[in-house]
């Protein structure tokens, strides 16, 4: 029997990134904050993989944002200094919060993890004290992802989408 192998190209990752981003927003609206956190980070991983794959077609099974940043060249596409700080801030938020093993965490486990890294609800000054830790982080991560996606989609369309 023939072995089934999935091969992904840059466009597969790109369109998956857009879908995951929308799904993360949907999960937030439905108050599934822990899953929204995981899926938002996943959407950024897909976007970085799309950019990386345009330069380097070797598959890397690691889910390391630093490696993807390094080989995708994504952050180097931004030259305007003010926008650069905005995007670097957004990437910093993603890097500080997200990791691939969040998918294994229950809500309580994720709350504890966020508290352990110092990102419990008190960290975000613009949220009320009564706010939920998962909700705050989910919102922050989604906001960061919008900034990354706005820039990412614009670069992608300019560089890779064929003009009709």
């Amino acid at each position, binding site marked *: 029997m023939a072995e089934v192998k999935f091969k992904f190209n840059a466009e597969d990752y790109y369109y998956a990134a857009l879908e995951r981003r929308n799904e993360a927003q949907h999960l937030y609206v439905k108050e599934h904050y822990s899953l929204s956190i995981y899926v938002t980070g996943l959407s950024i991983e897909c976007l970085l993989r799309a950019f990386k794959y345009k330069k380097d077609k070797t598959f890397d099974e690691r889910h390391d944002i*630093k490696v993807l*940043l*390094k080989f995708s*060249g994504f*952050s*180097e596409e931004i*030259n305007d*200094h003010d926008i650069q*700080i905005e995007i*670097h*801030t*957004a*990437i*910093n*938020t993603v*890097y*500080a919060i997200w*990791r691939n093993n969040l998918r294994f965490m229950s809500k309580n486990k994720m709350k504890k*993890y966020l508290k*352990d*890294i*110092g*990102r419990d609800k008190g*960290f*975000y*000054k613009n949220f009320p004290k009564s706010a939920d830790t998962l909700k705050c982080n989910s919102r922050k991560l989604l906001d*960061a992802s919008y900034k990354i996606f706005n820039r990412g989609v614009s670069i992608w369309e300019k560089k890779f989408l064929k003009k009709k």
Partner: protein
Amino acid sequence: MGKKILKEKIKNALKTEFTEQEIDLESKSNGKIIGFVISDKFKEMNDFDRQKWVWNILDENLELSEKASIAILLTLTDKESEAYRS
């Protein structure tokens, strides 16, 4: 400017506020610099203030073309960094 010299210049600029152990820089094959500043001085600082702080240091110490060679510098606390590696 050579990759090594630029990396040292960035490190020296950052050493005005951080220790050598808190700075981890890497040169990419295209000459761009990617790295981390991992310090508990970032505790309770939001991501924008961390980045603004680091970039203010770089603005004061580097030329425009040198700053353009920085791909990204991530700013993390010890715990954030530790959790990422675990």
